[in-house]
């Protein structure tokens, strides 16, 4: 055997071992409920209240009404509506590092929407990520979560969508680069990362926990943002809910870790945050979480949100090393004391545009919603969410105080200084963003 031939063989062998290791690692990626242990049973075999379906007061409602509730719980609206566009008509852009993906029209228009979908077609899309024409969906559509939705619930969602007025609208073509534009590869991906099974309750957990699990995992797809992804862009449930950056926003750690997760939040705080987007002293949901609250979580039955809290409580603590373990107390009332004082430009912008609402102390004199003290975003030395809120503002439903967007009048350098000032003054560890960091975050902002 020539040295070359021997070398090639050895190299191939190493490669095979590596690929196998990665494949095994991927193939053994735990499912979203693996952490809970216990014995999974079929839905029929579960004793206690039904974890799937709709809350009690909707049990007798029409399938469309039930579907409406479940559609909200699954938060289909936000991703399937372009800014300023018709609801559910698609065209929302997902700006990814390798191109832009546009959501589809899920109104019942026969040509451009899903009007021609049979029940089987719809279930195929929801559970397997397969379009009616056989093309494979990208996992921007969270079918690896929706796969757990029962057939009955999925078809209720379909019934609701089909009750809406059809809208003729074709989203722009995707602009993914090779190899990401190869849809067939999603089949391989799915074989690794889509469990492809329906929800199975854990027999030794309470009905409330199981209801929370169904809502969080199958419908609300919390993990899609809050769980870090592996190299193959799939959810890494080994670090379930430990926080992740996506589309320029940091979906923070919502494990039971006391310092960097929500372990030290009281139940009523978690409930308030999910149901209203705000809990006193914990900040206000903004960006994608704000949308999830406004369009989905705030529309759910109180019992359902409480069930989600119960479920969240059980997720094992996983500490985030990039976050300080404690959030800061209120800043001094005087602008002369406190952090960030050397950052004159950041301070100047804060004085002009921010202090009126947020106060030098961080405790808003206008509305608790604007209080910075205690908010995770200002206690994040990465400061991505502070930058995003400054860039895009915070548009809340009418009647609630909104925050305007400042992205067009301040340069990247100014916003970097502002974010560094805000995190230094109101957080326990200030950020050190540069002009380039802000430029990058600006690009990542969805739309």
């Amino acid at each position, binding site marked *: 055997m020539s040295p070359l031939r021997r070398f090639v063989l050895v190299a191939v062998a190493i490669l095979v071992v590596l690929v196998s290791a990665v494949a095994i690692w991927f193939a053994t990626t735990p499912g979203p409920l693996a952490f809970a242990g216990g014995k999974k049973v079929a839905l029929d075999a579960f004793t206690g209240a039904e974890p799937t379906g709709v809350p009690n007061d909707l049990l007798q409602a029409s399938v469309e009404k039930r579907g409406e509730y479940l559609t909200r719980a699954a938060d289909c609206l936000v991703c399937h509506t372009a800014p300023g566009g018709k609801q559910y008509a698609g065209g929302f852009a997902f700006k990814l590092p390798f191109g832009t993906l546009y959501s589809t029209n899920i109104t019942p228009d026969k040509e451009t929407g899903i009007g021609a979908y049979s029940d089987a077609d719809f279930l195929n899309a929801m559970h397997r990520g397969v379009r009616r024409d056989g093309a494979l969906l990208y996992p921007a559509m969270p079918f690896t979560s929706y796969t757990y939705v029962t057939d009955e619930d999925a078809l209720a969602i379909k019934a609701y969508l089909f009750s809406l007025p059809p809208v003729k609208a074709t989203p722009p073509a995707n602009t993914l680069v090779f190899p990401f534009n190869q849809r067939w590869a999603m089949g391989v991906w799915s074989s690794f990362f889509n469990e492809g099974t329906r929800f199975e309750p854990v027999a030794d957990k309470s009905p409330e926990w199981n209801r929370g699990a169904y809502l969080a995992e199958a419908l609300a797809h919390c993990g899609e943002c809050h769980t870090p992804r592996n190299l193959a862009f799939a959810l890494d449930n080994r670090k379930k809910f430990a926080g992740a950056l996506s589309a320029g926003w940091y979906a923070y750690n919502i494990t039971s870790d006391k310092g960097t997760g929500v372990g030290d939040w009281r139940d009523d705080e978690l409930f308030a945050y999910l149901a209203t987007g705000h809990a006193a002293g914990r900040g206000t949901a903004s960006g994608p979480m704000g949308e999830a609250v406004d369009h989905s979580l705030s529309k759910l039955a109180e019992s359902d949100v409480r069930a989600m809290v119960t479920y969240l409580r059980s997720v094992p603590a996983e500490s985030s090393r990039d976050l300080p373990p404690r959030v800061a107390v209120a800043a001094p009332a005087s602008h002369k004391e406190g952090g960030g004082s050397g950052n004159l*430009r950041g301070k*100047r912008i804060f*004085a*002009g*545009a921010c202090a009126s609402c947020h106060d030098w102390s961080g405790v808003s004199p206008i509305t608790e919603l604007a209080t910075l003290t205690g908010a995770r975003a200002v206690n994040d030395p990465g400061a991505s969410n502070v930058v995003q809120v400054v860039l895009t*503002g915070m548009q809340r439903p*009418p*009647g609630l105080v909104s925050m*305007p*967007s*400042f992205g*067009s*009048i301040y*340069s990247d*350098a*100014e916003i970097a200084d502002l974010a560094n000032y805000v995190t230094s003054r109101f957080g326990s560890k200030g950020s050190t963003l540069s*002009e380039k960091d802000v430029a990058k975050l600006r690009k990542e902002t969805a739309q």
Partner: protein
Amino acid sequence: MQRDSASLDVTRRKLLQAAGAGSVLLAFHLPLRAAPAAGEAKPTFAPNAFIRIDESNKVTLVMPQVEMGQGIYTSVAMILAEELDADIAQVALEHAPPSDTLYGNPTFGIQVTGNSNSVRAFWTPLRNAGASARAMLVQAAAQQWKVDPASCSAAKSAVTHAATGRVLAYGALVRDASKLTPPATPQLKDPANFTVIGQPLKRFDTPDKVNGKVVYGIDVMLPGMKFATVALCPVFGGKVGHVDDSAAKQIPGVQKIVVLDDMVAVTGDHMWAAKKGLDALDITWNEGPNGNVSSAEIWADLRAASQKDGVVAKAEGDVAKFLGQGDRLDEAYELPFLAHATMEPLNCTVQLTKDSCEIWTGTQIMSRVQGTVAQLTGLPLDKVTVHNHLIGGGFGRRLEPDMVLTAVRVAQQLDGAPVKVVWTREQDIQHDVYRPVYRDTISASLANGKIQAWKYRVTGSAVIARWLPPAFQKGIDIDAIDGAADIAYDIPNLQIEYVRAEPPAVPTGFWRGVGPNNNVFATECFIDELAKKAGKDPVAFRRDMLGKTPRLKAALDLAAEKSGWGQALPARAGRGVSIQTAFGSFIATVVEAEVDEHGEVRLRRVTAAVDTGIAVNPDTVIAQIQGGLIFGLTAALYGEITIDKGRVQQSNFHDYRMLRIDEAPQIDVHLIKSGEAPGGIGEAGVTASSASLRNALYAATGVPLRRLPIDRAALAGKKNA
């Protein structure tokens, strides 16, 4: 090339005269009687439209011009009181009712406050009014005393016969003076004897502005009044399609939803109810033909238009020949759309009944408001009453009647109850009448360190053509070339051209500083670049070409001296100069600024030397220059309205940036004593700001910006200017 022999040496005034719009100017005389105030039965001496004196010795001065912060009430009162010899501390002020005949601005022939010309235009008429009344009062006293009027004197609202020590207050002379005929040519005072004019006087309008008592148009409260706010189609020219008001009707306090063809209004018990109601409406707009208009398209059109030959507004010497000789430079300068963003959002209160309409608002165009409302409602002019209020910022925005018409159209849908229509800031910014985009192309050649030929072409909207059509003559907008045609430098060969280019869809109008904003900026930026080409210092280069404008040369020398011109500055800091004769004031300005590595600008100091002729109220002149500079620097640093999909992209102060107190530089204004007639000052500070800032940044970085607002990336060297 289009050339019009009659268009040489066009000036605003000449054109206005030629157009006939200045007929009131030509024929300006003091109206015989002021309209007596309602219910005034007591004997009153009202020798002209501006002065009323009653028997209690109360002197009432009628203000033909509106007060919007420029201090004109005080200045007008000072001019009248000076010649009337009234006790300035005791006069009462009253705003004039709508009347072009009685109160028309001598320059425009209509009742308008703008173009920095209140003092300039009314200087002689008001002095005549005061002097004429004084002469009649003196004559009345002399007749009573049977002495020669020349032996009497007047002061502090009283006539004195010094020889006998007899004194009669004006109030005691009301009956007798009323019987006299005003003198044909009243004797005016020698300015050397002025006791009021030129002395700093505390403003009359400010005491009620520190305690919340002043009532702006937006503050009007009437019994039974409803509050309303409006939404116009976000796309210019669009119409209302469909309105779903089911959610709005559920909001507490919402009264009525008014849907018109091009706008929607909600009335309520208060503004909050109206605003919430409006927000809750689901409005589908028919965008119409302008849904694709964009800034990119507007700029492409403007640039293309600027390649064409323009109408020649002024030509001297042989430009074609001398541009071909010596060192030649060609550049172009561009200015963006701007919103006015007056602090007082647009508003108007209306009470409309079958046979009358009452208007409460703050407007720069009293009579035009009255006329347009009469036209809209079909009411006779005398059934339309306009109550004008102190104005919370005009800047040209209130030279338009749209906010009044909007309110009247809402009132037409109501039952006769008074309604106050207040625009949100978002509507105010997105439905402004914008300062036009301009592009100026300039070519010049140098010989022996001086300009020997100068060709200047303004391309932009003709605001005058819309606003005062008779003054738009022979294709030349006198405002668009203001500050260009009257260039102060000694240039033997020059040609000034105008190309009319109207942007699609976007309404354009006057914005504080008007035409000279554009022309002073382009001229003075280009002069700095020429100075560099000539290898000369910017001050010295200018100075050598000001032989025919000594007042400006003196101002330049003073500004250079006071600003420390030529003294060393830190790295990336620079001084820039600009000079102007705009609005009849001779001003040199030096801005000192520094630029950091990101291109961020810090204003260090501004020095202005100002010769405005006689400064009626000197502290007001200083205040106007200070404020005008800030207004102009704000726009130069940050101001730009952009258009996308037919709509304005900015909406409020979070995306239409304003200079704040912590960015404001030290400002030193040096007044030059002068006996010349007063110049205009309200806009002069604005036009003085942008080129001097840009030239300071040029000196600091070497980057020749040729577009506003200033481009920070270009200053940082990250892209070309």
